[in-house]
């Protein structure tokens, strides 16, 4: 190996497929020009965002058109160049992937360039602010109690802020962006090392871009984003530790892999479990394929990962088990009922437009077919290859993911989140299948026409990932305020109210609030915003039952927003956090105005829309330390 990835390709030379001539116009465009087109695409999509802000948000037809035009400008040249049979160097391939990743990340930044709006980011904003203020690792974070015990991203951001003096938002963007880029690059390098073809590796990463959460949740300022970078780094280091010729070099990469395991375990729960599963999978596949050395290496790494996870849960993050119990129970019940009766009891939460649903169904069909072809390819041509056989076994998780999507409550979101990990083996298998298809005799005879068709199909897959990812269609573009609708509800009033609450009420107050301001109160306000509090907004009068429940929940403050009485939340959303029933009518004015008429309930804050009432004289008064 000689210590360099490039060396193997250099020694053996490029393959016949990599050199094959082709008439496709896209394949002749230099990588630098593709970068330029992608940059123009980012600008055009940003113009779409601006049109949304200036007009009707996602209702702005011209804005939506500009957004998708920009996306096509980003995706099409990159996909066309990666899928073409014309020779592309390893440097060219990685440059294209970097261009794609940076372009998508810039679009995420341009969606909310002034501050955090993605709900999960508020939780890590609070974690970082707490760490900077207290100097302690496991400070209570009301919005994400389990995240308190996974402080990796807060540590990295705190270190960067301390060294540079940047704000949490600026440092958060750097950390998240860097981590996201590293994840993609390490994934590519890991694919390169294992598949031994930078072309197929590039196509695999391109297909990985079909993951619905990749450009949203996996590039936000959240702990998973950082942990994924370590997962990718660990995969790469683990593979290098198995294939290096010199024992010294193998040892060195092994040390890096172990460091990555520790960092992953400290940073994010699910990613650390998935990393362990991945290491186990490759160890088993290596054993099955007779690669004893790789099996031992990965077996040791898997043992270290499993022990680290167990120790972390046992000694630091005990609440992880209770955090996941309801989700796991729901999944098991849903899958049980699916296997027994053939149908699920899970309520359908999908509210996507017809076009998105069709795209999603097509995507599932195409990926399923590609997996089957890829499995056949893997078995026929790579039966002795531990990594590819491992990926073949792992790709069967795709069908479990489909089961989760159909069978479990909130399965759409769970499946979307799980796809981040399941798409790793799936993309490898799909890339094998796609490369076989592109290089097959009939396709070569038809040349550019078939290649264009394949490029179009892949771009459609990627657009499916974007269309059915986050932000959803009802907030595709930033725009006017929408009630109780995630990012669309985060406006200046919510932000100002949250900062006000921290300054004048102090932190940690138990406050009932609507779903729109809820994450902002948790993040900027450092309040203990409550779930399952819709009973406080259900009656026109303050009854003994309501008072009893409020006292039982130890509610200190109630936030009301007059806009809740004027419009419904966006499709599929609820007015209050923790609710499951989708509202069909707006809240009656009397249901929120009742607090003006209760003696002892003081009206402490009023901005015209948002009002905060102090309920403490009625019941729960926290004991000051």
């Amino acid at each position: 190996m000689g210590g360099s990835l490039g060396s193997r390709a250099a020694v053996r030379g490029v393959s016949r497929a990599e050199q094959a001539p082709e008439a496709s116009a896209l394949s002749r465009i230099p990588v630098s020009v593709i970068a330029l087109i992608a940059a123009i695409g980012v600008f055009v999509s940003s113009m779409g965002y601006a049109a949304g802000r200036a007009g009707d948000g996602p209702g702005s037809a011209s804005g939506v058109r500009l957004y998708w035009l920009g996306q096509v400008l980003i995706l099409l040249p990159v996909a066309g160049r990666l899928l073409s049979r014309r020779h592309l160097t390893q440097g060219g391939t990685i440059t294209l992937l970097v261009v794609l990743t940076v372009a998508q990340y810039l679009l995420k930044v341009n969606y909310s360039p002034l501050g955090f709006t993605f709900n999960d980011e508020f939780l890590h904003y609070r974690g970082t602010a707490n760490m900077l203020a207290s100097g302690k690792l496991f400070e209570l974070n009301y919005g994400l109690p389990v995240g308190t015990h996974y402080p990796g991203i807060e540590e990295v951001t705190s270190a960067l802020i301390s060294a540079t003096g940047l704000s949490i938002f600026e440092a958060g963007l750097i950390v998240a962006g860097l981590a996201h880029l590293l994840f993609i690059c390490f994934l590519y390098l890991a694919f390169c090392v294992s598949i031994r073809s930078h072309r197929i590796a590039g196509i695999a990463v391109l297909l990985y871009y079909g993951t619905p959460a990749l450009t949203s949740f996996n590039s936000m300022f959240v702990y998973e984003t950082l942990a994924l970078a370590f997962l990718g780094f660990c995969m790469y280091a683990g593979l290098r530790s198995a294939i290096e010729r010199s024992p010294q070099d193998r040892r060195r990469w092994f040390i890096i892999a172990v460091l990555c395991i520790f960092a992953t375990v400290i940073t994010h729960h699910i990613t650390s479990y998935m990393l362990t599963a991945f290491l186990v999978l490759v160890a088993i596949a290596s054993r099955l394929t007779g690669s004893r050395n790789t099996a031992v290496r990965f077996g040791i790494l898997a043992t270290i990962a499993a022990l680290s996870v167990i120790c972390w849960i046992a000694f630091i993050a005990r609440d992880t088990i209770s955090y996941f119990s309801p989700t796991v129970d729901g999944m098991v019940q849903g899958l049980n009922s699916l296997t027994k009766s053939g149908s699920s009891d899970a309520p359908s939460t999908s509210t996507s437009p017809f076009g998105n649903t069709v795209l999603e169904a097509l995507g599932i069909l195409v990926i399923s077919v590609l997996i089957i072809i890829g499995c056949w390819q893997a078995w026929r041509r790579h039966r002795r290859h531990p990594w590819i056989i491992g990926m073949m076994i792992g790709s069967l998780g795709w069908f479990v993911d489909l089961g989760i999507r159909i069978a479990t409550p909130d399965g759409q979101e769970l499946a979307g989140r799980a796809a981040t990990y399941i798409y790793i083996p799936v993309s490898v298998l799909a890339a094998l299948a796609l490369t076989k298809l592109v290089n097959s005799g009939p396709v070569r005879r038809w040349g550019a026409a078939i290649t264009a068709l394949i490029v179009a199909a892949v771009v459609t897959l990627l657009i499916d990932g974007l269309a059915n990812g986050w932000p959803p269609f009802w907030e595709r573009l930033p725009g006017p305020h929408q009630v109780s609708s995630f990012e669309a509800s985060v406006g200046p009033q919510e932000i100002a109210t949250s900062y006000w609450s921290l300054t004048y009420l102090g932190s940690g107050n138990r406050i009932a609030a609507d779903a729109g301001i809820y994450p902002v109160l948790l993040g900027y306000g450092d309040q203990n915003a409550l779930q399952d509090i819709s009973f406080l907004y259900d009656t026109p009068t303050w009854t003994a039952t309501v008072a009893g429940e409020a006292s039982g929940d130890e509610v200190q403050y109630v936030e009301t927003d007059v806009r809740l009485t004027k419009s419904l939340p966006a499709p599929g959303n609820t007015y209050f956090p923790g609710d499951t029933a989708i509202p069909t009518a707006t809240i009656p004015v009397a249901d929120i105005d009742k607090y003006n008429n209760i003696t002892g309930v003081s009206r402490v804050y009023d901005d015209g829309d948002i009002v905060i009432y102090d309920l403490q004289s009625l019941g729960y008064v926290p004991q000051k330390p």
Partner: protein
Amino acid sequence: MYRRNLDIFLAGGIALLGGAAFVAHAPGPVQVVLGIALFFTPGYLWSEAILSMRLSGTERILTTAGMSLIFPILGGFLFFALRIPLLRPAWVGLLVVLTLLGVVAAAIQRLREVPPDPRLDPRQQARGRQQPSKARFPVLHGFIYGVAAVIALGSVAYSVKSADTQKQPAYTMLWLTALQNDSAKASLGVTNHQGVTETYRLKFLTKGKVTTTWNITLSDGQTWQRTVAYTVDYSIVADLYLLPNVTTPYRYVDNGEAVSPSASPSAKTSK
């Protein structure tokens, strides 16, 4: 020898400068540049020390960045175990110490390592073969990448401006809340977010009677605030009027105690 280890000296120097910039409270941009360098230097040095074999440029950049993200996590956990508070000086100290240790580790590693023979390095040979084609359009490609970067960064600036100028609903914040450390006093305040300078009249009523009136002119974003006596034994109401309307309160807050009807347009009248 000197040239071969120049990167180590540079890294050590940057770390010390970054630490000095923090201690001396250097101006913002200087601290940002040196701070970012300080953040990534330990990753570079330790990737040199651990992975001393010659990596390609891409691999070196990626391992450097990856390890730069790992060190604060493991270092922070170590500090936590040692009960060292993770305040800003501790983070900067951690990065400086990691850098200096990295300088030593990388230097030792290089002393122990036999310099590679470029003739035996396939990567070098490949580089040699590729040189003529690589050098064909470097300036043109560099220029195109530069234009792409300008357009991409321009899109961020454009989005910042677009978000900054987005029309938002005008609002005014009014509050009356007991002080956290003294329940006999309350903070009474107004913040103008109407987008323009506004003039308000704030009437403070106790037991239904106006005791104080303030005429307040606030520019956009400006806050007016007073500390007032506070109790829950009798009614306290603050009515804010947005001039010229002085008949209907624009905003109001109260302490939750009821008063007789008609004392204030906004006061509680039922118990």
